[in-house]
């Protein structure tokens, strides 16, 4: 049994989210919205953590991939799903669900392709240079979307509206679980420790036979793919999306979750995604002081817990196992 614990955890989590999903109609719409936002933020943060935390690259453009995914998935849903659903056997819940999944995956793939296009040339840049290039890419995506025709496929500055609210508890948490599983499994193997090696010392990693470029690109593309999925979920949750919503500040928000959670620590990042999303709701009562309180909390957190909520200590985990 123990040998398959990861797979079992995965299946259990999927089942639970399906179960909750069945009763989600009775959940208060607002609370459901928060829960789904939590799930989407988990996907965003865990996938960014693969790039920034585990592989030690520094991307400030995650929102761009989210945008690509959101637009890709929404355009599919708006333009094509009416044709696809009959092919899948009519307008039942099942066919709609599959069409939605296809939309999400299309969004993810679009984002992954963008990730590859951006990653290939730019991943040889180091640290802050990579950060600014990804941030720049983020802004370029936004500007391009913003300058599209208002009545065209992308909807110009107003973006897309009337996207059906397909995002359910099941889809969100199933994908969040898969994201956690994939990132966790990738990193937690002999092959995957290459990501960590690249982070710690690229020169040494190369000299140990690790193809550093491939690792970096793999991390980047995987991260982008999941960001794209999250974007698709987001679009089908909010039902409208606009370019401005995916500006670099959105990327910052995701980076904040990652660092607050603890770079390279999946559990920490998940926790941070939950806490920050919920905190955001709590702080509403502070009204115009809300962002002031939030920024102070951020500063204090960094001073009090610089290593993040749950820092990653891979060598400690190991110790427990071998003991």
């Amino acid at each position, binding site marked *: 049994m123990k040998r398959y614990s990861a797979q079992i955890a995965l299946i259990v989590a999927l089942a639970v989210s399906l179960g909750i999903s069945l009763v989600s109609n009775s959940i208060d*719409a607002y609370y459901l919205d928060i829960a789904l*936002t939590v799930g989407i933020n988990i996907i965003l943060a865990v996938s960014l953590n693969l790039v920034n935390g585990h592989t030690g690259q520094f991307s400030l453009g995650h929102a761009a991939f989210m945008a690509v995914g959101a637009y890709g998935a929404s355009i599919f849903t708006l333009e094509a799903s009416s044709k696809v659903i009959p092919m899948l056997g009519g307008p039942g819940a099942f066919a709609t669900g599959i069409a939605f999944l296809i939309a999400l995956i299309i969004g993810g793939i679009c984002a992954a392709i963008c990730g590859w296009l951006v990653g290939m040339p730019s991943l040889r840049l180091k640290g802050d240079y990579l950060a600014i290039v990804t941030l720049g890419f983020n802004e370029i995506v936004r500007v391009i979307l*913003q*300058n599209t025709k208002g009545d065209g496929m992308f909807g110009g500055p107003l973006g897309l*509206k*009337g996207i059906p609210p397909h995002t359910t508890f099941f889809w969100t948490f199933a994908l969040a679980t898969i994201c956690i599983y994939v990132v966790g499994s990738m990193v937690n193997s002999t092959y995957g420790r290459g990501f960590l090696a690249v982070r710690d010392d690229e020169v040494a990693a190369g000299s140990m036979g690790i193809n550093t470029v491939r690792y970096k690109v793999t991390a980047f593309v995987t991260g982008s793919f999941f960001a794209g999925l999250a974007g698709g979920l987001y679009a089908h949750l909010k039902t409208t999306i*606009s370019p401005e919503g995916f500006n670099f500040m959105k990327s910052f928000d995701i980076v904040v979750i990652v660092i607050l959670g603890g770079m390279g620590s999946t559990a920490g990042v998940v926790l941070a995604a939950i806490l920050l999303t919920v905190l955001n709701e709590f702080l509403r009562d502070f009204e115009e002081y809300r962002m002031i309180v939030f920024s102070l909390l951020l500063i204090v957190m960094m001073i009090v817990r610089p290593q993040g909520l749950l820092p990653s200590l891979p060598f400690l985990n190991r110790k427990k196992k071998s003991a």
Partner: protein
Amino acid sequence: KKSDENVIVIGEVAALTGNTATFGQSSHNGTQMAVDEINAAGGLLGKQIQLVTEDDQSKQGEAGTVAKKLISRSKIKALLGEVASGRSLEMAPIAQAAGVPMISPASTNPKVTEAGDYVFRVCFIDPFQGTVMSKFALGKGWKKVAILTDTKQDYSVGLTEFFNKHFSANGGTITGEQSYSSGDKDFKAQLTAIKAGNPDAIFASGYYNEVALIAVQARELGITVPLLGGDGWDSSSLVEVGGKAMEGCYYSNHFSNEDQSPAIQEFVKKYESKHGAKPDAMAALGYDSAKILFDAIKRANSVEGPALRDAIAATKGYAGITGNISLDANRNATKPAVILTIKDGKVVYTETIAP
């Protein structure tokens, strides 16, 4: 925020902070004033009105969440807001699905009210205003106009689109189309290019924040032709910042501060004594959106969704601050536009253009 037997809870979503806070705060001030007035006058249906305002930080995604919060947590009977069309579009399907009537004070994009029969607005829509300004320009004999659009604002893009359509179709020539993004401060490049086209006027469809600077820089570059614009220009800071450069420019608006009708003067006076500044269009629209809602509640004698919806839809010739408002079949306000001009540092009324 408990639901009390003796109050009617109304929700409002506004950008009180963030980069469009200047619009959200104005419309909120107007809305709040209307609520205070009605409560002072004894409320509605024997109950006080309780306004629950949620800030969406000018951020995408937030408006939808807070709309859900207001509907499911605060159990609001009606929803007011948002100024920005993008965010109103987030709220509209939620209000529609919940059967809670929503009135947007200032979202001018035609798509907003397409969300369903529970979604209304009290402002005019982009096609109308774009057309009005085109008519006005043509009427002045300006055949060559250059356009400067804020591509970050769907509002500006919309105005430009409809201005362009009408103007070109009616014998005008567009000498140049330039754009910028809100937040930009330097427009010299665009203006230099525009200057080369030698236009009779420049249609600047964006918001006052940038337009004031555009005017200043246009004059620096020796461009003397007037600038034209829409209700997005309406703010006292237009003249404060633009100063002399704004002289002789025209814009369309819902109302004029200078309008001597007692209702408007009273509104202006009250607002000014409370907020230390003259009300701008957003404030007036926020005020009217609440007033129209109250009027409908009174007529419906109920706050139940369908009844209230029908009562709002039946609004005809309501004398608001922003004009005589009637809601059409598409739940959009039809009302005349006034054209204002800046003269000796004051905004003065020139003419009214009916729909």
